[in-house]
């Protein structure tokens, strides 16, 4: 057993097992351990220790063989992961050929198999949902209703934000509730200019600084942010929230945590007689042997697609189509935000202004379409804009500068004009035929059936993308930008790395997989609190909501155990 961390390593029986140590699994481990449960936290990848395993964190570009870039050859051999990583942070992403999956339609499945999972490399945006989001399915008759509303989650948002440390600005918007914020980061000159333009020209929208899990002051022995904007390498200053920097150390500090890396969960063991799950079966990726571990409750936090794959692969006489799949909904309704379309422009003003330091976030224009009052669009739901203002640097300028020699060099090394890039992060509706399945034929190196993904954005998303381009261009025009270019990158699903759905929450066991506290309807001691539980996608970056749901479900699980109901 390679690299097991914690006291209870020889045991096979625990109070709780958590599958996956990413952003939601880390929270489950922390909450369960702090409530006194002896917890086994499993991760399929290697262990990454906070700070000491951030091997590239302090590297200068010239310290790295390829200066931080992906070479064309590397991109060819890692076509998916190389879109999201490079020489500075690829140690936190899988190698494509080692972890194959089937793309029935193009879908970028981004993965980080290690302690902390993708919490090491996430975008750190933290936005609350509101009842505009939770009530939308019911109001429009789409899919099924969320079994919860904002009031159910509000105190859990408070709870997790207070621990994470989120910097941001309260804006008093009903569609984007305010949270517990550390001091906000500042907008730069061009962003301030955009913000004041929106204020004077529109009464339905604002521009605000992103709300991010980057610390503007020291917080719980972490941070503050050093404004290097190299978060995805792992932060030696603990400047942003990750499982590695925050939840796992807290869980370990209780003495109740056992962390077992190199552990691929192949299935959850269900006992037909007891009518509950008794444990998990894993393959140790180092000694290639199978092991079984047992516990009273199991939290599945392997990430949306992987969680559903585990459930689908957990077959028994009672659940021939996958654990908890009485509804036939398991593996369906896969969602991802689209963030392909927007606009870009440069501005001739503010030539005598610059900035110092690299702010690790951009700005947000919260959703302003299809609200309670205001514009009513042809599409359902809506989008927010996320973007960034900056002066063009050498990387941006090089391709448009002709010629060679002194003048070229002079232009290249001088700050270019101000620019704003912004794209719409848009809601994706839950469609039954956007699916995750297990291959009948192909297996991975652990003998586990390969995941097969079929996903497409549909008419509602396409209409929204056009609208995004139009409104982005209009706002840039109103703010006096020149050379404005709308764009639509037409990225396939998965590219926003906000996979959601496939094991949705709902009120009715006939049409959903999980109940209002993230329990599998028919297997009450199995909880699923990662992105797979989502009933709709909102347009907010979803991690904060996973964390709040996880803390809430842990609270419920431990209370139920105390009452001997689990």
């Amino acid at each position, binding site marked *: 057993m390679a690299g097991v961390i914690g006291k209870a390593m020889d045991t096979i029986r625990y109070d709780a097992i958590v599958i996956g140590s990413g952003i939601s699994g880390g929270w489950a481990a922390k909450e369960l351990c702090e409530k006194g449960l002896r917890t086994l936290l499993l991760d399929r990848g290697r262990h990454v220790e906070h700070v000491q395993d951030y091997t590239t964190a302090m590297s*200068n*570009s*010239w310290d790295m*063989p*390829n*200066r*931080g*870039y992906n*070479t*064309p*050859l*590397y991109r*060819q051999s890692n076509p998916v992961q190389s879109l999201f990583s490079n020489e500075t942070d690829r140690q936190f992403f899988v190698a494509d050929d080692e972890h194959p999956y089937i793309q029935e339609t193009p879908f970028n499945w981004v993965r980080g198999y290690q302690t902390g999972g993708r919490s090491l490399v996430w975008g750190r945006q933290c936005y609350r949902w509101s009842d505009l989001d939770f009530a939308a399915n019911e109001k429009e008759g789409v899919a099924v209703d969320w079994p919860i509303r904002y009031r159910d989650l509000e105190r859990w948002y408070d709870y997790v934000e207070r621990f994470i440390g989120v910097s941001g600005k309260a804006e008093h918007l009903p569609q984007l509730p305010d949270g517990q914020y550390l001091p906000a*980061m*500042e*907008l*730069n*000159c061009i962003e*301030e200019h955009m913000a004041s333009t929106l204020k004077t020209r529109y009464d339905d929208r604002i521009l605000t600084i992103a709300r991010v899990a980057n610390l503007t002051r020291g917080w719980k022995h972490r941070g503050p942010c*050093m*404004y*290097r*904007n190299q978060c995805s390498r792992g932060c030696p200053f603990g400047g942003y929230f990750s499982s590695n920097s925050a939840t796992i150390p807290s869980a370990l500090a209780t003495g109740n945590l056992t962390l077992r890396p190199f552990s691929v969960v192949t299935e959850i063991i269900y006992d037909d007689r007891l009518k509950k799950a008794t444990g998990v079966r894993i393959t140790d990726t180092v000694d290639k042997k199978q092991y079984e571990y047992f516990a009273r409750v199991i939290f599945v936090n392997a990430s949306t697609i992987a969680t559903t794959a585990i459930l689908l692969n957990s077959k028994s006489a009672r659940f021939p189509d996958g654990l908890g799949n009485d509804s036939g909904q398991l593996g369906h309704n896969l969602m991802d935000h689209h963030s392909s379309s927007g606009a870009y422009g440069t501005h001739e003003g503010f*030539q*005598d*202004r*610059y*900035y*110092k*330091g*690299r*702010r690790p976030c951009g700005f947000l224009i919260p959703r302003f379409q299809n609200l309670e009052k205001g514009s009513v669009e042809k599409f359902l739901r809506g989008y927010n804009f996320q973007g960034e203002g*900056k*002066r063009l*640097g*050498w*990387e*941006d300028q*090089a*391709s448009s500068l*002709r*010629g*060679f*020699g*002194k003048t*070229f*060099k*002079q232009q*290249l*090394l*001088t*700050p*270019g004009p101000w620019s704003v890039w912004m794209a719409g992060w848009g809601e994706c509706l839950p469609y039954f035929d956007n699916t995750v399945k297990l291959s009948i034929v192909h297996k991975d190196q652990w003998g586990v059936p390969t995941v097969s993904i079929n996903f497409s954005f549909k008419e509602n998303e396409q209409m929204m993308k056009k609208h995004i381009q139009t409104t982005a261009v209009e706002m840039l025009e109103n703010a006096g930008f020149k050379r404005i270019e709308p764009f639509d990158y037409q990225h396939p699903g998965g590219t926003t790395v906000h996979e959601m759905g496939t094991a949705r929450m709902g009120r009715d066991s006939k049409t959903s997989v999980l109940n209002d506290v993230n329990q599998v309807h028919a297997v009450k001691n199995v909880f699923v609190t990662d992105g797979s539980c989502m009933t709709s996608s909102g347009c907010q970056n979803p991690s904060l909501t996973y964390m709040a749901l996880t803390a809430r479900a842990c609270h419920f699980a431990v209370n139920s155990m105390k009452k001997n109901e689990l």
Partner: protein
Amino acid sequence: MTRRTSIKLLLGAGIIGMLLFWLYRRVGYSVFDIGYLKENSHLIEELAEVVIPETDSPGAKQAGVAAYIIQIVGTGELRQEQVTFVRGLRQIDGFSQRTYNRAFTACSTREKVSMLNRFENKVSSRFPIINKINRKLFGRSFIEQLKELTVEGYCTSMLGATKGLAYDYIPGRFEACIPLSPGQRAWALN
């Protein structure tokens, strides 16, 4: 097999063979040889220095850009672009011999700049769509590779980042909107 079909087959094979040989000569699809790059490191160095010359700050030569170019072209690029690059080195030297009667490296700065300008004008169309298609079908041209790799190699080198540009290793704080100081260089990391 009849005699006639055999003759046809032989003839066919011969024609295909000739075509392949012609293509091979034309595209230069020999086994890629990193040795050739190393042998020509002086030429690469001179070319990079034309793109980014020494001024009041170091140039590409001093910043060691040639080594970066040889490393990336030699070990990181796809065959097609490698071949294009090597062929470009031969072409520019050939052009220099024909035009100025001497090797590229022996030419004056003005002559060198004028040759690179000529190469750049030749490959880039007024129509962006044509450039895009060219790039998609044939990869980057020699001159595009040279320019991009020189810029990358220079701006990410220690000398380029710290002397040519402004380098802020650990900023520590963020100042959102400050006056641009005279002669301010762009941030190496923006």
